[in-house]
C-alpha cells in the first residue's frame, strides 16, 4: 500500500537555512546539507529545498547544495524557487534534484510546464500553487510570496497545469502560512478532488492533528511542514506515529 509522505521543507537563502533547524547533534544548524542528513536519518519521506530569494547570481549555491545533498542522502529531493525555464529544470536535475518546482513562472506562462514535462517527464515537474481565499469556497493564485494578486482561480489553474504535464501539486495556503492554525482544508480538498495527480498540502501546520486533517479531510497525498520539525516541537517519528494511529498508512520502518 502506498504510504502518505511527510516532507520537511527547508527555506534556503544564499546557501543557508533561513530558520535554523533545532536538532541536537547538528554541527552546523544553518547548513542545509546537515539538516537534510538529519531528516534522512529521522525517516522523512522526501525533502524540499526552497530558495527564497533565488536570483541569477546566487543560483550556483543551490546547484552546489543539490549536489552535496544527493551525495549524502539517498532519498527524493525537490528544489524550488526561481525556476523559470526548462534549462533551469535541467540544471537542477543534473545537480542532483529529483523533482523541480515551478511557481511564478508557471502562472506567467503555463506552457513552460508543458515544455519541461515533455522534455524531462511529468514525474519530476512539480507546480507550487500559492492560493488565498477571496470569498467562501473561492481561492485565487497569488505570486511573489503572496504579495501579488493575479485574479486566477486556483482550482482552474491546478487543472490547467496538470493538463500541461505537472506531475504533482505543492499547494500552499497563503492565508494559513506561518499561522500554525492548520491547513486550509476546503482549499486542499477542492484542489485534490480536481486533479488526478498527488497534492502536497502546505501552509499552517501547528500540531500533529493538522497533518492528519490534511490527509483525511483535505485529501492530500503528502504533507509538508517546516516550523514544527525545524524547531523541534515534534520529530518525524512522532508525526508518523500520530498519523498512523489515526489510520493513515505511513512508512514507519
Amino acid at each position, binding site marked *: *500500500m*502506498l*504510504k*502518505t*509522505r511527510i516532507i520537511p521543507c527547508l527555506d534556503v537563502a544564499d546557501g543557508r537555512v533561513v530558520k535554523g533547524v533545532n536538532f541536537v547533534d547538528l554541527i552546523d544548524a544553518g547548513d542545509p546539507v546537515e539538516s537534510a542528513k538529519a531528516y*534522512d536519518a529521522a525517516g522523512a*519521506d522526501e525533502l524540499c529545498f526552497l530558495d527564497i530569494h533565488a536570483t541569477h547570481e546566487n543560483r550556483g549555491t543551490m546547484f552546489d547544495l543539490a*549536489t552535496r545533498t*544527493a*551525495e549524502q542522502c*539517498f*532519498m*527524493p*529531493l525537490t528544489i524550488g524557487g526561481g525556476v523559470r525555464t526548462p534549462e533551469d529544470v535541467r540544471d537542477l*536535475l*543534473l*545537480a*542532483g*534534484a*529529483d523533482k523541480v518546482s515551478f511557481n511564478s513562472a508557471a502562472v506567467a506562462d503555463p506552457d513552460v510546464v508543458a515544455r519541461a514535462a*515533455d*522534455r*524531462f*517527464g*511529468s*514525474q*519530476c515537474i512539480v507546480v507550487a500553487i500559492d492560493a488565498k481565499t477571496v470569498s467562501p469556497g473561492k481561492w485565487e493564485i497569488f505570486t511573489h510570496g503572496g504579495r501579488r494578486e493575479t485574479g486566477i482561480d486556483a482550482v482552474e489553474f491546478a487543472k490547467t497545469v496538470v493538463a500541461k504535464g505537472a*506531475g*504533482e501539486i505543492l499547494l500552499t495556503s497563503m492565508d494559513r502560512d506561518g499561522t500554525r492554525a492548520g491547513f486550509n482544508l476546503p482549499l486542499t480538498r477542492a484542489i485534490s478532488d480536481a486533479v*488526478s*495527480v*498527488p497534492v502536497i498540502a502546505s501552509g499552517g501546520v501547528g500540531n500533529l492533528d493538522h497533518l492528519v486533517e490534511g490527509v483525511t479531510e483535505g*485529501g492530500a*497525498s*503528502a504533507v509538508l511542514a517546516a516550523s514544527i520539525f525545524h524547531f523541534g516541537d515534534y520529530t518525524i517519528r512522532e508525526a508518523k506515529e500520530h498519523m498512523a494511529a489515526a489510520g493513515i498508512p505511513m*512508512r514507519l*520502518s
Partner: protein
Amino acid sequence: MLTVLIDYDSGNLHSAEKAFQRMAAEVGGGEVIVTDRPDDVARADRIVLPGDGAFPACREALMARDGLFEAIREGAVERAKPFMGICVGMQMMATVGREYRDTDGFGWVAGEVVKITPSDASLKVPHMGWNNLVLEAQHPVLEGVETGDHAYFVHSYHMVVEQSSSRLAHVDYGGDVTAIVATQNMIGLQFHPEKSQEAGLRMIANFLTWKP
C-alpha cells in the same frame, strides 16, 4: 571491475552515480562511471540502464546514440553481463510499451508496459511515493530484502509480464503493480533504488557482487 551507468540524457544520474559508488566502495565493487560511450560499455563488467520520462522518448534518446544500444545489447544478451534496468530503463526490457503509442521494447522480458489503473478511483496516478514490496521469489539481488520493505516509486505505467516466473515482486496500489522483474543475468526495478534508502542501497550492493 567496472560498472557503467548509461547516460542518454534521461533524468538525474547524479544520485544514482553516488549511490552506486558508495555501495561499490563498501562491498569492493570496483569502479562506477556514468558514460554514453559504447567502448566504455564494451569493457564494463556490469551495466545499469536508468531512465526517467516517457517510454517512447527514452527509447528514442537511447537509439539516437550511435552504437550505444548495440553495446548494451551485446554486453547484456550475448556476453550475459549482469544488467540492471531502473524505472523506464526497466520498462524498456519488455516486449512493448503502450505509453502514448505502441513502442517496441528490447524484448528481454516477455510483457507489455501499460497504464496503472487502480481499482480504487481515489488513488492518484502517478503512483508516487513509498510502497511496500511483496516478494514473490528469491533472487541474489534481493538478499536481505524482505516483504514489507519500502521502495520509492514514481511512475504512471508498469510492466505486465507474460510469465509470472519473470516477476520477483509487486506492490499493491488498487491491484498489483509490478515492482521487480528478472531473467537470467538481468534484473529490472520499477522503483528507484538510489532513492530508497536502506533497502535500495542493499539491492545496489547485491547487484554489484552478483555473479549470475
